[in-house]
């Protein structure tokens, strides 16, 4: 990677600086909205690793999102703040475990079966939390206080502060972006790309294809879990909706919107999706029609999947590439 001063790089730098400075001038509502976008951006990147880089279309990615969220909620005591390090690592461990268990089974199948099996496993988790009393059933549970990020009594970051929380998630987004970027440019990442194009050939070349896919599935699952954990502590609330297949389909939509196989595209897709959702469900702008936001979202999704298979970035870059 060599950095040249081009218009594009300058624009990116300005955008990043503006995002970084956002809490200094924006109202609380917008800072929280953008925190949500950052979190969904992390979530979309994690799914893009599977869909865009390995060619595994999962319709059950919400399972990780929800599992980690419930883990955050269940490990938060009601009257005091939980320990961030404990609940965070527990949440990610659960996701890794779940990814290993379901991945071993789901990766035995291909294309269409994989879609259905991942959906079925996510639905299984949905039913566990929906039908039993573990996590408050269909009503979900509250997290009264955000976990405390402290080492031996010294608070490192005050996550209750919405500005700090924003910067914290922003930092995570950048870190995960960098991690995935390095991963995908490594030998491992190239092998994943090879598997996407021609699995049989990669196997013939002696690559342990199954282990490559499983490890990618585990990485994607745990990053999805990170997003789910932050989502839970931001809203202080988890319910089975977090695991529902609507969540899985929405994040898939974000990936498509941003153009598959592009990490910043996934973040871009997430921002467009969240902002659009915010816009069409805004009652002060659309009046009573806002209650039909899912109708509008439905038509939007149908239109994108029919007319914009490469997403919005595909629309922009079409002219410049050819």
């Amino acid at each position: 990677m060599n950095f040249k001063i081009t218009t594009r790089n300058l624009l990116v730098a300005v955008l990043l600086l503006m995002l970084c400075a956002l809490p200094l001038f924006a109202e609380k509502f917008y800072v929280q909205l953008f925190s949500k976008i950052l979190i969904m951006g992390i979530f979309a990147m994690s799914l893009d690793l599977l869909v865009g880089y390995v060619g595994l279309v999962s319709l059950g990615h919400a399972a990780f999102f929800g599992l980690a969220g419930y883990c955050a909620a269940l490990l938060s005591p009601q009257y005091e703040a939980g320990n961030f390090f404990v609940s965070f690592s527990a949440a990610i461990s659960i996701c890794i475990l779940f990814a290993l268990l379901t991945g071993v089974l789901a990766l035995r199948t291909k294309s269409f079966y994989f879609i259905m099996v991942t959906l079925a496993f996510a639905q299984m988790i949905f039913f566990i939390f929906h039908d039993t009393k573990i996590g408050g059933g269909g009503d979900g549970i509250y997290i009264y206080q955000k976990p405390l990020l402290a080492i031996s009594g010294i608070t490192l970051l005050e996550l209750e502060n919405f500005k700090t929380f924003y910067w914290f998630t922003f930092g995570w987004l950048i870190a995960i972006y960098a991690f995935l970027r390095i991963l995908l440019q490594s030998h491992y990442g190239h092998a994943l790309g090879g598997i996407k194009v021609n699995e049989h050939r990669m196997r013939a070349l002696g690559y342990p294809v199954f282990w490559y896919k499983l490890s990618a599935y585990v990485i994607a699952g745990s990053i999805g879990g990170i997003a789910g954990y932050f989502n839970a502590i931001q809203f202080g609330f988890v319910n089975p909706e977090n695991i529902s297949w609507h969540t899985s389909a929405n994040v898939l939509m974000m990936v498509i919107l941003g153009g598959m196989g592009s990490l910043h595209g996934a973040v871009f897709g997430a921002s467009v999706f969240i902002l659009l959702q915010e816009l069409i469900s805004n009652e002060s702008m659309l009046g009573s029609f806002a209650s039909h936001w899912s109708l509008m979202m439905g038509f939007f999704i149908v239109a994108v999947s029919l007319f914009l298979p490469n997403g919005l970035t595909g629309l922009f870059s079409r002219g410049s590439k050819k």
Partner: protein
Amino acid sequence: MEINSILIQLLNGIQYGLLLFLVAAGLTLVFGIMGVINLAHGSFYMIGAYLAWSLAELAGSFWVGIAIGIVLTIILGMVLEVVFFKHLYRRDHLYQVLMTYGLILIFEDLRSVLWGNDIHGVVIPELLNSSIQLTENLTYPMYRFFVSAVCIAIAIGLYLTIQRTRLGMIIRAGATNSEMTQVLGVNIKLIHAVVFSIGVSLAAIAGMVASPISSAYPNMGTQVLITCFVIVVIGGIGSVWGALAGALLIGLADTFGNVFAPEYSGLSVFILMSIILIWRPEGLFKRSYK
């Protein structure tokens, strides 16, 4: 558990399984012949239930309501095929999943506009509102037998249509090689529309006959859809026989799961799926009718 209640649960399980078969058969047919994953298939089940409720009230008779409903869903199937689905046949599964997810959002919203968000019970028709004496102290509702009989009749009809008629021959030919079939002078686009429409009306019929038992409620399609996905995975996608076997297995697993561990009944279906996936990753029957 008594032998009597086991027998009752067995009958319930088979009835539920047969009902699921109607929905899963449409799903698997559409995939087998056009190669489309249709997430919105469960919505047709819901539409069927709501149509049965509203048309039965309008027409004053359950039977007239169902007859009109079937005609309406056949038309709906044709329209949806022409407007939306035919563009998806050659596309990646990813876009099929997304577009049909968008359709679900549209259907659910239209449902709330047309019929509201309340749960609507459908009255069991007078003719069938009785019980059958199985043994001295064991009765079973007549209507549930009726549902099973309808499902079995449709299953046999479907089998005969696919295996023994000219239309069925063309459908099978189209599934194997649609271009070649077209070259031989068959209007394959029409065949696709017909198959899709059959799939839609099968799911809707299932919703209609189930409505007096389950009533009509929002999002009822989702649960059925996911169960049918599991059935199709178990049975082997594209195989109608697989769908039947899978549906009966799931119907029984779900019913007995409900009896023995009500809190975890949602899990029994998925556990069954996992076991079958370990054993046969491509399902029990791999596309047998091709």
